[in-house]
């Protein structure tokens, strides 16, 4: 960090008077500076690089190695090749986990896209109080996920939860519904909590994109007699499809390896009805100490995650001006 500071003194001495030769001065300044610039660049990026290497890349590569080993208590880990992967592939429980992860991800994101689009369409017209309304609707996205998961667990409590009591008082149901005790309903419930947490972000992102569409397009369409529904399908939706795609991709990456909501609401149960990749890895690793197996289970989601990451990186790099 000292070098550039000292270099700047030389720079001033080296630079000829501006009035005499402005071009030459610029060139000289650039030549001295190019080396400084590189050094400063590397110095400033070094902490980020160190963090990525030590706390992301190394642990991750190490974990891939771990997934190829087996460790018994009292013995060192030894290499077993793809044994863990094969064992998981053949395990009925793991197949349920993989399928659940897909259902959880597709169900959550599908619902979030639909509700988010409805929210964006409804808030698109500038109405007084919109700002406040939008601020309020975003609250689920702000408060801790743990709070949300615990609250939903309590909302869905069999005897005393607001949902069952409310539905009963409205005369819709007789006996309480086993939201978290029935396998199908349990999956529905964790998806519901996830959607509740995530739809506001989808809605606000879509809304921001819709608001960049020129008003003239809508005016022209109105003149031509297009209904609001047609305007939504023909104008709004096509112009925000990039944002819909990127939000969906990002959310898929994180939802496929989601942990908090399922862990707190059901612990993966009943049975394995809501177990997904991360909760299952937790069970295998943290609870059973079968680290190789646990990491192998996580790795099964990696090809999909990697593919999606490639899509996102390419998309965002295209958007980004190459400065």
């Amino acid at each position, binding site marked *: *960090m000292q070098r*550039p*500071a000292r*270099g700047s003194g030389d720079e001033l001495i080296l630079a000829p008077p501006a009035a005499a030769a402005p071009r030459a001065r610029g060139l000289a*300044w650039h030549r001295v500076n*190019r080396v400084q*610039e590189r050094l*400063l660049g590397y110095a*400033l*990026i070094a902490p*980020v*690089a160190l*963090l*990525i290497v030590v*706390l*992301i890349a190394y*642990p991750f590569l*190490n*974990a891939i190695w*771990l997934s190829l080993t087996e460790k018994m208590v009292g013995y060192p880990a030894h290499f077993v090749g793809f044994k863990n992967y094969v064992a998981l592939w053949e395990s009925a429980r793991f197949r349920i986990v993989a399928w659940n992860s897909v259902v959880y991800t597709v169900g959550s994101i599908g619902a979030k896209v639909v509700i988010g689009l*409805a*929210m964006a*369409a*409804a*808030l698109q*017209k500038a109405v007084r109080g919109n700002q406040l309304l939008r601020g309020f609707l*975003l*609250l689920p996205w*702000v*408060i*801790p996920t*743990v*709070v949300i998961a*615990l609250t939903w667990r*309590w*909302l869905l409590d069999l005897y*005393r939860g607001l949902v069952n009591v409310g539905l009963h008082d409205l005369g819709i149901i007789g006996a309480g519904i086993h939201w978290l005790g029935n396998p199908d309903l349990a999956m529905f419930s964790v998806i519901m909590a996830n959607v*509740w947490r995530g739809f*506001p972000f989808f809605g606000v992102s879509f809304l*921001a994109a819709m608001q960049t569409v020129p008003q003239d397009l809508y005016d022209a369409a109105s003149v031509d007699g297009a209904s*609001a529904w047609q305007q939504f399908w023909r104008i709004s939706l096509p112009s925000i499809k990039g944002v819909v795609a*990127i939000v969906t991709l*990002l959310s898929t*990456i*994180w939802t*496929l*390896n*989601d*942990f908090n909501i399922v862990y*707190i609401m059901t612990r993966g149960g009943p049975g394995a009805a809501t177990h997904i*990749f*991360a909760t299952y*890895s937790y069970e295998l690793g*943290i609870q059973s100490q079968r680290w190789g197996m646990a*990491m192998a289970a*996580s790795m099964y*989601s990696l090809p999909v*995650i990697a593919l999606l990451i490639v899509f*996102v*990186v390419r998309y965002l790099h295209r958007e980004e001006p190459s400065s």
Partner: protein
Amino acid sequence: MSSRAFRWLVVSGLLVLVAVPLYWILDTSFKTGRQILMSEAIYMPRPFTIENYLYLFEETRFAQWLRNSTVVAVASTLISLAIGSAGAYALTRLRFPGRRTFGALVLITYLVPPGLMFIPLYRTFIQIGYSNSLGTLILAYPTFLVPFVTWLLMGFFRSIPRELEEAALVDGATRLQTLRRIVLPLAAPGLLAAGLFCFTLSWNEFLYALIFIADDSLRTLPVGLSEFVVSDFAFWGQLMAAAALASAPVVIVYIYLHKYMVSGLTAGAVKG
């Protein structure tokens, strides 16, 4: 259906959907244990009591968790801001070989889900003999905060006109002086927004805190809250009071933050 009716229907539907669970938190938190246990006074606490809130501070480690959460969130935010802003500046303003590759690498690490990283990180902390300390979390959180901050601030730095910096450089200021006197003040709103985002992400983080910390006295709020539920039984009154208090700081931060939100989101913060 007319578009006006549609709008009214969607808006009121979403309002109810968001308001009901939030109301349920506050509603429960002000009820007595008896009202909750016997399902009396479901929709309104009658009588209204603050005993659940008092209980948290008198009978549980809530104050301790609050302190731990604050220490971890503030420290990891400051570290991440320092590291991330330097990185973002280098990646947007300085030319050096490998810059573009590095930019992509930051984005990739930003996208890696914590659900995939918790075992690798945990094993690494065990290897180096540094788990079960608040410091573990202060080291672990930057793994997702720094890529996020860097990515967010790259957008902010790009929006600052280069000419201002170039003018300062031509006048003989060093790069570091330019960074300190010109770029940072102009990027202050971005730094603030990034810092508040980091604080919120750290404050809400659960998975790493659950796994890396074993001592009850070192727990952060989200983990402390989750421990209230023992098998199928929970003290819902106290728990909802704790939920309300744990949410309060981030809601306050958000009220301030939300004007930056849409503009500064870039790749978004759907994470977690």
